């Protein structure tokens, strides 16, 4: 169900300080698209996510699982790491941790071995085999919120987020579409000079 998000939105990539702190697990990655919108936001091409409850292998498997559920080929792993971060936070609850750890184990079983080492096609077959399980539902439900509700995703999709602090779009392109003719003024009056 819909629920308010809880603190998983981070304005920047996981920091090096967080990485050095060391937890029970750490995922380290590098940005693939050095000129993409996310690279502009990132302080470094290397990112790290420190895990509190999950180990590195589980975290990496969940990241890959999230990529299979919501595949955006040109979207950085750093964005998918937001899903792992949210799941790791929830895994502070032992029952959630158990669900996730056993879920990853069931992926291995479905794949007949180390799931993450299999080909992408075989990985996907195992993902589909788990549809309908509580593990699948938990990861999918977390994904659909965490993956699209952070500044890195905003940058990837071109969404501009909060606007009131920039004066809205009144003078910043609310009607700048130029590949169609402008509607007549009776349908769409011109901007009032006393607009705001």
């Amino acid at each position: 169900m819909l629920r308010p998000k809880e603190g998983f939105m981070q304005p920047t990539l996981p920091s090096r300080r967080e990485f050095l702190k060391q937890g029970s697990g750490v995922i380290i990655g590098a940005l693939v698209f050095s000129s993409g919108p996310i690279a502009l936001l990132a302080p470094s091409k290397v990112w790290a996510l420190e895990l509190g409850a999950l180990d590195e292998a589980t975290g990496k498997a969940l990241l890959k699982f999230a990529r299979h559920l919501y595949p955006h080929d040109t979207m950085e792993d750093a964005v998918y790491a937001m899903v792992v971060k949210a799941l790791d936070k929830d895994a502070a609850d032992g029952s959630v941790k158990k669900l996730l750890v056993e879920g990853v184990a069931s992926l291995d079983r479905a794949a007949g071995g180390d799931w993450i080492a299999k080909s992408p096609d075989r990985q996907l077959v195992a993902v589909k085999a788990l549809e309908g399980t509580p593990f699948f539902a938990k990861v999918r439900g977390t994904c659909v919120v965490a993956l699209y509700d952070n500044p890195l995703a905003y940058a990837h999709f071109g969404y501009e987020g909060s606007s009131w602090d920039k004066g809205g779009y009144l003078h910043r392109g609310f009607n700048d579409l130029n590949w169609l003719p402008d509607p007549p003024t009776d349908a769409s009056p011109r901007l009032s000079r006393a607009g705001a």
Partner: protein
Amino acid sequence: MATYETSDESVVVVIGSGAGGGTLANELCQKGAPVVLLEAGKRQSTATYVNDEWASFGQLAWTDKRTTSGTWRVARDFPNLPAWTCKTVGGTTTHWAGASLRFQRNEFRALTTYGRIEGANLLDWPLNYEELAPYYDKAEDKLGVTRTHDIAGLPGNNNFKVFYSGAKKLGYRNVHTGRMAINSKPRKGRLGCMQIGFCFQGCKSGAKWSTLYADIPEAEATGRLDLRPESFVTRIEHDDAGKVSGVVYFDKDGKEQRQKARVVCVACNSIETARLLLNSQSPQHPNGLANSSGQVGRNYQRHMTGSVYGIFDKPVHMWRGTTMAGIVTDESGNNPKRGFTGGYEMETLSLGLPFMAAFLNPGAWGREFTSAMDGYANMAGMWLVGEDMPQETNRVTLHPTEKDRFGMPIPNVHFDDHPNDVAMRAHAYRQGKAIYEAAGAKRTILTPPYPSTHNLGTARMAAKARDGVCNKWGQTFDVANLFVSDGSVFATGGSENPTLTIVTLAIRQADYITDQLSKQTL
């Protein structure tokens, strides 16, 4: 701002501070009545609103647990969130888009106009358009509705340009930026629209009308309003003579309070209004307060809805600017040749990236979904809203076992689409898709109904007491000093967004209540 004793038997208690309750409280105060306004939610302001969909949802939405049943898809995708309404001072006027359309004449005479329809519990309203017209006029002036009272329309945003282009190519005639309760320039102490794009999250410029910063401060300025936020009403009580005597509520500290009243007006949005009446059962009212007809909670309507998104090969940036300032009204009449009764409106709509992911196709995963999301910046969107058929079996009931933190049964919302709703939605989807294809869309996506924001009919007004809960003033047939003051009183839903009509009825009801108070009949 006034402070009344809980033992004060002279006050009018209004429960809920949204379009119905907030308006009614102000109108009563302006006419000299002492009003205690009880609101379950906290008081926010334009300063505390946030341009962040999930954070705002957490701040404003009514998220108390509810259950669902029936064949509607909402029951599967959002089983504990049948409706997207608000628990905050200002109610759902914080969240509404601002579309402000009058009902059409015939929509007040649904049974006469449409005839009997199998499975539908159609009824004519016990009032007509002419009776409401002067009040519509007042409501439009109060809200500052564009294209009325010489108020200019809003300038169209990018989403509107796409919508307009496709609609005109398809041959639609009545296409414009709508009648919106959003200032196109400053008016009545509220700023003009800054095209912020977060109408649903509370308007931070205050350009969109909300009782929070329009009617409630006006009422407070009279010195007659006692607004009590975070006050959750659990029961309405009555005396031996059968008149309501007061309400029981839990205050912000969770402490039980009992406020006496001369008149009680219920405006909690259709689900909670019905729940409160049902939870107020007593030996005199064994099936719920004011429910001798058995109609409380029944005929729940949510409008036929759906959305269409078109993906183009060039950017649209639909999130920029007003969320819903764009309309085609050509399909809103009753034209049975289309294969269904009643009509629908097509209105521009945008969702931010987070809510687009949540609502585009709830439960979906994989490339079909993500390839659509990849087109987000090039997407245009519209909402379809039409008249749905009232059905007795679509209803709000009390959950047999689950209770809220105050020990009161939570509501269950049961809904099945009527075949007419299904036929209308199919037609509306087809036309919406055709609009975007005419504008050059590469792909169109049909999105299922969101949790309901238009909740209507659960305490409907009727000419005869056996057919409904209230008379034409929203006064309950069974209890003279008990009124219903929100969309629950709608006999049928029309094809229009309901807020303007809710406000109109509340202004009219205030006249009636003050008149009856002065005549000592209440």
